[in-house]
């Protein structure tokens, strides 16, 4: 999807590919996803420490546990805890973390239980509910691909469909 991606105040940008995760402090600039189809982008940011990270996961969990060990960021169940750990290791404090999500789009008429986008979205809600984590903002579902970005200096989180940008945080 064609869209110019902004750079942070330090002019830097990290792109998080499919099934990948990145965490950094404000000097790293902006973290963005490549296009999110049914995958989910998840950002976690501490506005005091000015550290944050982004996960771009593909699926809920693997069929076999070893696959999650080899590629933890491809899956929600291994990638989400890894993202929180990575941000906390950089100095983020759990009680201050701003959490946003985008993605989880669906191909049309996917009615036979594949529904990867819907399942990717609902596992996130279940995980957060179980662990007492607040999801501050989200832009999920539908049939459009999105780009997600997190400005590590300001904490601004956006979700963009084509050229139309929605600011998820601050609201």
């Amino acid at each position, binding site marked *: *999807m*064609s*869209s110019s991606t902004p750079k942070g105040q330090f002019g830097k940008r990290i792109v998080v*590919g*499919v*099934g990948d995760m990145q965490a950094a402090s404000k000097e790293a600039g902006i973290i963005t996803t*490549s*296009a*999110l*189809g*049914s*995958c989910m982008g998840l950002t976690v940011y501490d506005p005091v420490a000015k550290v944050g990270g982004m996960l771009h996961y*593909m*699926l809920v969990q*693997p*069929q076999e546990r070893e*696959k999650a060990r080899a*590629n933890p960021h*491809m899956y929600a169940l291994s990638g989400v805890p890894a993202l929180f750990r990575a941000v906390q290791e950089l100095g983020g404090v759990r009680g201050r973390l701003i959490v946003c999500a985008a993605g989880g*789009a*669906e*191909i*049309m*008429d*996917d*009615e*036979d*239980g*594949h529904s*990867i*986008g819907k399942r990717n979205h609902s596992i996130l809600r279940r995980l957060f509910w179980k662990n007492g984590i607040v999801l501050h903002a989200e832009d999920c579902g*539908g*049939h*459009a*691909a999105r780009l997600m970005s997190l400005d590590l200096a300001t904490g601004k989180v956006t979700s963009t*469909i*084509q050229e139309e940008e929605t600011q998820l945080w601050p609201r």
Partner: protein
Amino acid sequence: MAQIDQILNRLDRLPAIPVAVTQLISNLCSSSDDPDKESTAHIVMRDSALTASVLKAANSATAGFSVPAVCVQEALQRVGENHLLKIALAHASQQALGGEIAEYGLGSGEAWLGALVGALAAEEISKYTRKGDPNVAFTAGLLRDIGKLAMGLVVDPAKIGTLLSESIEDITSRERAEWGFDHAQVGAALGRVWGLPDELLNGIRFHHTPPSDDMAEDLYDIVHCADNMALTLGYGVGIDGLKYSINLESRENLSLNRAAFEDILVSVRLRMNNFLDDTQGQAA
């Protein structure tokens, strides 16, 4: 289809395909003992960029040799003709598919990435299900969306973006309702101009709407499911988004249950970076 052929025939210029691509396709999709076949090494050596790409792939860390390959024949021996053909085809197809397709909201390189993911997905599905020919599946997956290159020439390009963004139903149905044909049919017509074999033309034509009648072939189901996978992963997705209908029968025909679909999705993602690195030294 005759209507699209007539429109294409009237046009002064059409998207072109490098000669090397059609020759590589012919080698990849035909039997190895075809006497008329030109050697893959000769096809590659005629194109300096292609030669460089092939040597780079053969000398990459994954190839595992300490002494670098210095000629195409040596590269062929190292990585095998089948793999080398796919690398060369992916590299050469960049010339046709690597540009921007503004009407579909695809920036430079995005359509090509989507093509590559579709190619790898089709090959993986074919291998996993033991249906179809993995090489033909790879090629059909790669070329499935060439119709998007020509849509802006056969209909008013300004109307494409509006139709795609405003549609709340399956894009191919909207295209057919608006213009009488969809981009998959245009792709098949363009492929005919390029001289592609009928099997590939049908793979392109049916990649969104595989037939269930006596026209049905495993290849069409494979390319349809591969297209689903590329959309799911977000590669090659433009203004049209994921507004395409799934043909559930294709998954049934291929016995592609949820676990299998997800396994293949992961395999494709894991192969993607290595393949891109071999092709042009860029990561997804």
